[in-house]
């Protein structure tokens, strides 16, 4: 009975300490992040700080293709439509600081409202003043046509890995999955000021909630960062977050399974050792 009392006091003290160094400390240290997420209502898939789309204007994919060929393909390739990139990735990276994305699948990854605003003014929509893409001066009709075209050619059912590489792979590497960014680290460092972090275990370092909020509005969580807002839609964001979680912690299932087995084994051991203790201590006291 007395030993039980000691045990209870011990457990309470340990729990107080644990509460202090884990939940309490984290809530205080991450307060600014929580506040930023709350203030900007992240993730904001409506991109509510941007101008609304002119829904009265109907986009036409066929006209869109013509517009794209006129304005975009001098920098961008479109594999899905057999339009090759005008430069090889290395030359392109050295010319622009980063490889201009292939336009094939962006229609499925990006939010259309974001895309509309991005085509109007890339620097403003991406919140990245140094961005290499200039405003092309397209009118609303042309932009709506381009969006309709991009949506018509995009692959709808990309898996997590494809989505991640398409959306992030021009700057970010995933070393442990043997994927290396299109532009070399040196080139990226010149363009962005630092080498963007590798994605191999970033989900363990940052956590899913942070990643989702950060990708959605980088400047809100890390003011001054060279990460542009890329304008991913909800589906793509979730796919990418899930994939990053999977590759960062591939042992999740095994851990639960083995863990339960080990704990059950220890429970049996507790029973056996208790029985032996009872037997040995009979008559002592």
């Amino acid at each position, binding site marked *: 009975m007395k030993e039980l009392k000691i045990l209870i006091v011990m457990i309470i003290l340990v729990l107080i300490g644990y509460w202090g160094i884990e939940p309490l400390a984290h809530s205080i240290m991450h307060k600014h992040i929580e506040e930023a997420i709350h203030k900007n209502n992240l993730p904001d898939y409506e991109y509510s700080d941007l101008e609304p789309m002119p829904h009265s204007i109907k986009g036409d994919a066929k006209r869109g293709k013509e517009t794209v060929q006129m304005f975009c393909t001098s920098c961008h390739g479109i594999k899905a439509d057999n339009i090759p990139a005008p430069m090889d990735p290395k030359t392109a990276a050295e010319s622009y600081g980063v490889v201009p994305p292939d336009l094939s699948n962006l229609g499925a990854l990006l939010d259309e409202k974001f895309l509309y605003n991005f085509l109007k003014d890339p620097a403003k929509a991406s919140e990245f003043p140094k961005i290499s893409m200039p405003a092309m001066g397209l009118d609303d009709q042309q932009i709506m046509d381009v969006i309709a075209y991009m949506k018509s050619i995009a692959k709808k059912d990309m898996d997590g890995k494809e989505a991640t590489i398409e959306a992030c792979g021009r700057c970010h590497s995933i070393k*442990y999955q043997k994927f290396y960014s299109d532009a070399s680290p040196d080139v990226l460092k010149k363009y962005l000021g630092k080498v963007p972090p590798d994605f191999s*275990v970033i989900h*363990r*370092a940052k956590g899913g909630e942070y990643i989702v909020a950060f990708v959605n509005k980088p400047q809100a969580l890390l003011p001054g960062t060279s990460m542009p807002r890329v304008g991913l839609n909800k589906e793509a964001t979730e796919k990418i977050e899930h994939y990053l979680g999977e590759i960062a912690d591939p042992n999740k299932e095994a851990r639960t399974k083995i*863990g339960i087995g*080990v*704990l059950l084994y220890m429970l049996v051991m*507790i029973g056996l050792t208790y029985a032996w*203790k009872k037997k040995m*201590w009979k008559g002592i006291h």
Partner: protein
Amino acid sequence: MERKEEVKSKSWLDQRLAVSDLWKVMMSEYYLPKNINFLWSFGVLTMLVFVILVISGIFLLMYYKPDANMAFDSVNKTIMMDVAYGWIFRHVHAVGASIMFLVLFIHMARGIYYGSFKPPREIVWITGFLLFVLMAATAFTGYLLPWGQMSYWAAQTITTLFEKIPFIGPDLVIWMRGNYIVEDATLTRFFALHVVLLPLLIIVITAVHMYAVRIVGSNNEDGTTMTKEEKKEKGIPFWPVFMAKEYFVMSVFLLFFFYLVFFNYKFAMDPINFEPANYLQTPLHIYPEWYFLAFYEVLRGFFFSETLGLIAFAISMFIILFLPWLDTSPIVSGKHRPLFKIMFWIFVLDFIALTILGKLPPSGLFAWLGLVTSLIYFAFFLSLPIISMIERKQVESGGRQ
């Protein structure tokens, strides 16, 4: 003729190594008092955790690369993803290192409360203190090895502290790091210390610690002294009676331990440490592992003077060594010392408060709380001579036994 018979009755090993005599001295005829509770099991628990750390450490050693360019990947890719069950060994090693200190702190607190450091057990206390310091050094050097952001910046910050030592400080820091900043040379030497020198010293001092306990015997709840004969008559043998209970305590402990290993390991594996070390980018918050937080908070507690903080930090660790000479009360066990009891519980709560404050940003209210809790930490040790004096007077006047 007689001699021959004696020889016959002994086993081969016995004749040469006297193993059965050793067994008797160390185990079957080493008697413990009956009035001890399960807190006396924590000594053997530290041994258990140490063995777990050595075994898991050896397996990690087979794949770990002590090189600044390879260390992070060898831990996070090779061990965590490629080697079959490598992740279990890393989890066990990381959680084990953390839990070692929980067990050590409880073991030490038991010693303080029941007066186990008092004559004739000073050597037990001193060797125990050395083990604590060695364990801290092992944990500190080991924490650098994964070469993550927190590894790097914790090592950078703590080694910088030595800069303040008069005359030799700045040179000492460079000598320790092998470079002007924490770099590859630092990693390699920390590795050498972590896997060879420090564990070796721990094993040697543990042997002395246990030998000393066998000589002076275990203390007990009431702090009563018993002769060998009294113990033999009224006590229990270490083997098998005490160990029968110990195995039960171990099983319960291991249930808790493996729960942490598989389901709640984040406290021992900081998320920030999953970012590779980058000497150009300081993390927003730098803090040591939880077991150093209390001492770290004493360092920060004197926020108005860095020098004072450093002196306090050094004293806060080493004052523990001098307990046998600070607390000279003739009454051994805290169980029979009402004044001491009050101070002891204030100390325990203060230690927890220091640990919690150690992780929080040292600004505003937290800075002042840090100062107050640091002062209370020292107040406990300084109150001991006074309490001892009062109690000695009480005993001399025959008021208490």
